[in-house]
């Protein structure tokens, strides 16, 4: 817990490792304050931080391990490369100080993993924003941390530069078994990277859990723009149609066509089905361009913006959210337990490839 003037942060969560824990919330929700306390850079007024069974902070017992002894890597929004050293000098800074800590990644591996070969001899001011963040990532990794904190590492980059860094973050998640805490207020980053989601609002944890499970919860409405609300489902690629750029996924008991590239058969992928793009039908429909019709049962109906509701549909395992107007709800007379078809356009799914995890870590 931390008080700063009017703002009070009171957050508690525990998450399984490895995986990417996303701290998601609007600006000012306490995300950065929270990870600064994890790193030990900011002392909490009251609280406890534990990492893999080791107590790092415990205000009641007077424990406060110094940041330099926590073995927690930190990637800052503004990279914070040391301007008087080359990229290689920056990379080695933490490595030299890792001391007797077990080395899980070597210099050459980091250079290879993050594509830093050509950058090593350059100074920070000769690097682009995206390159700087990659060096900062490598520098943090070489300190051999047990946990990596990333504070909106893409926020200061334009869209093109983000694409320069995101694939590397995916690589870290998929290839290294290092737990990461990723702070962001961009849901597409969360969708692409996170396995566990912590929703923050006004200094409190609204909800936390696996991304898919949380995506259909009502709390998402208070942290997401209405158009971004939608169920996140994991599926396995069963068939690829490279000519059209679509893949067929096994989702729950049904099949789903999604537009997704670079995902060969057998890949585990995650797609978000935006609530605003889903059409509900009480009987099978023919002669529509919609590629996907998933049969399911209505779980519940929750109010949304005035004039619309969110209908949660169980499609044989995964849950799907559909935003329909209150008029439509009345016309269809939807009640929990009713059978419905959820119609999803293949082109309206936002998909990402997840190579690592067989199944996302589950709490229960």
């Amino acid at each position, binding site marked *: 817990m931390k008080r700063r003037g009017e703002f009070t942060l009171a957050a508690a969560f525990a998450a399984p490792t490895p995986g990417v824990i996303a701290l998601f919330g609007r600006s000012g929700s306490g995300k950065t304050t929270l990870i600064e306390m994890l790193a030990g850079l900011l002392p909490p007024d009251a609280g406890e931080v534990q990492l893999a069974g080791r107590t790092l902070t415990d205000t009641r017992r007077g424990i406060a391990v110094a940041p*330099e002894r*926590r073995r927690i890597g930190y990637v800052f929004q503004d990279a914070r490369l040391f301007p008087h050293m080359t990229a290689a000098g920056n990379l080695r*800074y933490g490595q030299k100080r890792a001391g007797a800590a077990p080395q899980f990644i070597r210099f050459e591996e980091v250079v290879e993993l993050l594509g830093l070969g050509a950058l090593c001899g350059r100074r920070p001011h000769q690097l682009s924003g995206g390159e700087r963040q990659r060096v900062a990532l490598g520098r943090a990794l070489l300190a051999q941390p047990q946990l990596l904190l990333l504070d909106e590492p893409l926020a200061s980059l334009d869209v093109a530069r983000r694409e320069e860094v995101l694939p590397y973050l995916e690589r870290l998640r998929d290839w290294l078994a290092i737990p990461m805490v990723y702070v962001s207020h961009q849901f597409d980053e969360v969708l692409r990277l996170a396995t566990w989601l912590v929703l923050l609002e006004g200094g409190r944890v609204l909800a936390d859990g696996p991304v898919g499970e949380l995506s259909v919860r009502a709390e998402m409405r208070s942290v997401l723009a209405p158009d971004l609300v939608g169920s996140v489902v994991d599926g396995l690629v069963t068939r690829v149609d490279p000519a059209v750029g679509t893949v067929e996924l096994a989702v729950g008991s049904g099949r789903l066509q999604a537009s997704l590239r670079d995902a060969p058969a057998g890949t585990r992928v995650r797609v978000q089905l935006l609530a605003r793009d889903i059409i509900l039908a009480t009987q099978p429909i023919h002669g529509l361009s919609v590629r996907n019709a998933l049969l399911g049962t209505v779980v519940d109906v929750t109010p949304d913006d005035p004039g619309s509701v969110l209908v949660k549909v169980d499609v044989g395992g995964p849950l799907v959210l559909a935003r329909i107007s209150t008029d439509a709800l009345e016309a269809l007379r939807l009640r929990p337990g009713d059978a419905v078809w959820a119609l999803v356009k293949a082109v309206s799914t936002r998909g990402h490839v997840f190579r690592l995890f067989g199944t996302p870590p589950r709490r229960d």
Partner: protein
Amino acid sequence: MSLSLSSAELEALRLSLEVAARSVVFSLPLAVLTAWILTRARFPGRTLFDAFVHLPLVLPPVAVGYVLLLLFGTHGPLGAWLRAHFGIQLPFTTAGAALATAVMTFPLMVRAIRLSLENIDRGLEAAARTLGAAPLDRFLTITLPLMLPGILAGAVTAFAAGLGEFGAVITFAANIPGVTRTLPLALYTAMQSPDGDATALRLAILSLLLGLGGLLAAELLVRRVRRRLGR
């Protein structure tokens, strides 16, 4: 009039360089420490300490020399102690001239160093912490190298100003040829003697060139270091 320097004039030049160099070497570590305290430390009386450090800028140099004489004179508290324990005598010696110069140029040095310290992004030190660097390690590998432009600028400016320190030197260390008669003191002496016009002019021109050279050197050095830091 001849432009070549007489041996006495060369002696004064050499002495000026020596006194200025010794004063810089002596005061640099202290100036870094003082700048660090003034920028980073929070303690009661900080404003008073700040004013005290800058005092030589506003005091008459003769007053500074006089205070030094009271403190470091043979019967002064510090002078007696130095003499008893180390056999060091400061008044009327080259070392004394260097001390007086150091005190006078100290604020200049502190100001330049402080400015560079204030410009350092504290976030870089926080980053070094998360990479495992303890306080002294952080200071030596991050803070100090980033202060370098200020340290160099401060050292060169103080050196250039030290070449011409007059009031405090003549009061504390007197005007002894070959021992404490630096350039400005030699210039003053020449002006006092009836046939010293040519000497005075040569020494004045020499002082001007040295001062100009010092300031230019400081600027160029700082630019070069800044470029290396990418600023």
